[in-house]
């Protein structure tokens, strides 16, 4: 009657890892990227084209950026999926799940393309 679900551990695992990355790294990046310059804590040229291009030239920084952007996408996908359930969504669950996780998968591809295909 009950059967163990073989797919869920993967998505929960990704949600957890994404949650750790988001918890440790996202707040400081929001502050540095969005607020530090306008409030004068950071010189405006810290985010300049030349400096950012040089940073992104380092292969290790590309890996860091990949982790920073992609893993929180899986965290959000999982949380959005279950929040939809918690808001009472009962119909079209498989489609909603596919949209959430599909979005994260597409995001993974896009990030990889930007970091290693374009830059």
């Amino acid at each position: 009657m009950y059967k163990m679900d073989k797919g869920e551990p993967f998505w929960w695992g990704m949600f957890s890892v994404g949650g750790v990355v988001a918890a440790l790294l996202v707040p400081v990046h929001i502050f540095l990227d969005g607020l530090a310059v306008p409030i004068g804590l950071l010189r405006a040229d810290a985010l300049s084209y030349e400096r950012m291009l040089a940073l992104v030239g380092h292969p290790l920084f590309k890996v860091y950026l990949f982790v920073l952007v992609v893993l929180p996408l899986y965290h959000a996908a999982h949380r959005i999926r279950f929040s939809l359930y918690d808001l009472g969504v009962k119909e079209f669950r498989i489609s909603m799940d596919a949209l959430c996780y599909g979005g994260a998968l597409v995001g993974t591809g896009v990030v990889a393309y930007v970091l290693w295909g374009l830059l």
Partner: protein
Amino acid sequence: MGEKKTITLTVTRYRPEQEEAPTEQSYEIEFRDDWVVLDALNHIKDRVDGTLSFRWSCRMGVCGSCGMMVNGVPKLTCAAFLRDYYPGEVRVEPLVNFPILRDLVVDIDDFMRKLKAVKPWVVRREEKPVEEGEYLQTPDQLAEYKQFSMCINCLLCYAACPVYGLEPEFIGPAAIALAHRYNLDSRDEGREERKQVIASSAGIWECTFVGECTEVCPKDVDPAAAIQRSKVATTTDWVKSILWPWGKR
């Protein structure tokens, strides 16, 4: 001596033989400083209105029978003191997320089925024959699962859990906490069997860690922790099965 203090209890009534939907009835009774809500209900039943139906037994917080909503919060009525609500009104309703059978009595068959499904007993591949003696357990081994063994099946956690309210097939906090209790028991060998139940789509994966189950638990079982640890254990098993599939479980 001064005028008698009173307190009003507004209680859900449901008499299916005479009404379609639940109604309310208010009783103004004498307020006594040392009474709990259960005392008030028993006073009403004994002296005011004998038709009021509700479950209770030990009146000391160990049997799990008297769980009800008191001012919107799931509580054991034998542990909810009137003086904490006085002089305000005390609203007593049946535990939410369960169908109402009559007045304050709810149908808990769903939980009983789920509890049985998780096999809350020591499962052995082969039972030790009596002549070989008892199963021995050290105090440290007992400490591993003791907290989760304190569950009195009062179902306050099911009333607090919004997921159980939204998804009736959810196995629920107490049943999963008890499965976890046996999985942690050194005498038990039933983890794989229980995994089919608790790691199914109706099990741990439905939980979104709201955490209210742990907040309302009168015995500090912490079912939320049990569920999250089961998620970690199941995911770890899954990773191990991918990385070294030949390993023994």
